[in-house]
């Protein structure tokens, strides 16, 4: 079958490639909804090092996607089954390296084609079925799974006093981390620190919010999530190290293209643990889908979503990336190409 693949060839220039996919190898999934990640936007705008761009492009973007199975000769899924697509394709199982950190793994829209295709051929074990969840929510399963992964790792490594958790950032990543925290660590008091009052006001289910320039001197917490990224990563990490209690754990989640200075003196004095957390694995997806069974979680996630008009032609792809630049949180869209 001839498949249409919509690849970013160079910044803001998308080309259509055609590939012949075999129905007999993998499951074939028709994408239904997609969501734009900052990483996709950075590729689209060319906001990456030129060496990286020339190494990775041409490449189809998008790794947040839900769809419908149109064929699966493995017999795992019936035709018509709604599924979420796991963008991580592990090379081989490992006893101690998680699939999302295995350097041999492939990751859609990072080192292999993302999901901007007419059909996605994908191993059946990289699909998880869902029912009774609207596609506008299911499409966020990858995003929520990244938060689930980070909260799960914190639960595994942090000391057991988890009364107060601080989340730095007021964007969509901070929001989903708070969503996951609220469900997975319901007893913890969540404080969100951001720069934008309007965005902070969305965190209605956090116990407290602060502007980053008005933190009380006696503000302390047990553990923290850094969800800032970009040029303000350093500032956020500086504040976290300043206010966190000794032996706290800091989950670093924000991506920065620049090197970030770290106050090692205070970090050593407090005996802090810094853990990098990125992407997610199949178990995290399963947990995320499980959380989405709750109407409360779905409503919370729904409040940070802007649904743009469906993508029905090549020009619409440019439109959704443009829309995403002007929406404060997540841009999703129906895929009709």
């Amino acid at each position, binding site marked *: 079958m*001839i498949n249409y693949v919509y690849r970013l*060839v160079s910044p803001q220039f998308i080309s*259509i490639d*055609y590939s012949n996919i075999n129905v007999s190898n993998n499951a074939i999934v028709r994408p239904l909804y997609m969501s734009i990640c900052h990483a996709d936007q950075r590729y689209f705008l060319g906001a990456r090092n030129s060496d990286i761009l020339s190494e990775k492009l041409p490449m189809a973007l998008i790794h947040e996607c839900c769809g419908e199975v149109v064929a699966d000769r493995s017999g795992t899924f019936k035709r018509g089954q709604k599924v979420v697509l796991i963008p991580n394709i592990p090379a081989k199982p490992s006893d101690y390296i998680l699939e999302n950190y295995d350097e041999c793994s492939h990751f859609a829209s990072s080192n292999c084609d993302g999901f901007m295709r007419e059909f996605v051929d994908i191993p059946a074990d990289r699909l998880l079925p869902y029912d009774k969840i609207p596609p506008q929510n299911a499409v966020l399963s990858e995003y929520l799974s990244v938060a689930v992964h980070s909260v799960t790792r914190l639960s595994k490594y942090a000391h057991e006093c988890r009364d107060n958790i601080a989340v730095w950032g007021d964007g969509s990543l901070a929001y989903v981390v708070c969503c996951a925290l609220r469900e997975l660590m319901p007893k913890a008091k969540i404080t969100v620190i951001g720069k934008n009052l309007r965005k902070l006001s969305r965190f209605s289910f956090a116990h407290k919010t602060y502007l980053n320039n008005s933190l009380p001197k006696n503000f302390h917490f047990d553990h923290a999530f850094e969800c800032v990224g970009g040029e303000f990563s350093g500032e956020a990490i500086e504040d976290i190290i300043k206010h966190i209690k000794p032996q706290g754990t800091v989950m670093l989640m924000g991506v920065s293209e620049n090197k970030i200075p770290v106050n090692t003196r205070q970090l050593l004095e407090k005996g802090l643990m810094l853990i990098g957390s990125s992407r997610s694995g199949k178990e995290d997806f399963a947990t995320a889908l499980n959380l989405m069974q709750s109407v409360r979680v779905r409503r919370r996630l729904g409040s940070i979503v802007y649904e743009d008009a469906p993508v*029905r032609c090549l020009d619409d792809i440019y439109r959704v990336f443009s829309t995403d630049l002007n929406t404060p949180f997540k841009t999703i869209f129906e895929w009709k*190409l």
Partner: protein
Amino acid sequence: MIFGAVLAGGFGTRMHISSMPKQFLPLDDKPIIIHTIEKMLTCSKFDAVFVGINPTWASYMNDLLDNYDLSEENIKVVIGGENRNDTIFNIIAGIEEEYGENDENIIVTHDAVRPFVTLRIIEDNIEAALKYGACDTVVPATDTIVVSHKNDIISDIPNRIYMYQGQTPQSFNIKKLKELYARLSDSQKLVLTDACNIFVMNNEEVKLVQGEVSNIKITTVNDYNIAQYLATGGAESD
């Protein structure tokens, strides 16, 4: 009910490169018609997909379906007719023999030699046929259309903004298609090269569905070369 109809009645006389009908020529690793049928099968709205085939090649077609593990799918092979419309009506006869007549039945007819059709085009066809009773897949004409009645001197150059190039699928409410065809005179039927014309000749509206420039019809050797290039990794950019 909604039926797909893959039209493969031709002999491929325009290819001049093979005695085999063009729909059976390989495109990358499989015959063109298999690519087309596989794409039609991705549409979950179809109750069945019919293939209208020249009688000489019917058993060959069945062998292909076996070879590509498609014989279990809901595909019916019927014998095509003398021309395009005969093939469509033979398929309709096959549909009604197996599923009976129903005023709401829709048929989505598609050239076997257009393997670059997309699911979006197929689904838009179904939606338009259900809503309007008939639709045609088109792309705006990019070349200027020149009319010559004597094949020698220009008779007219129509304004290009009103010109479109017809592709397939073409989709119809079966009952309406049959009724309108029955109203045509024998001389009108003789000049029909296109099923949508059955509606147009009866002053019935046919909705336009946006096609894709890439939804090419593999008719000539040049088309075939382009299709091979695209299917094996060539790129098109807009």
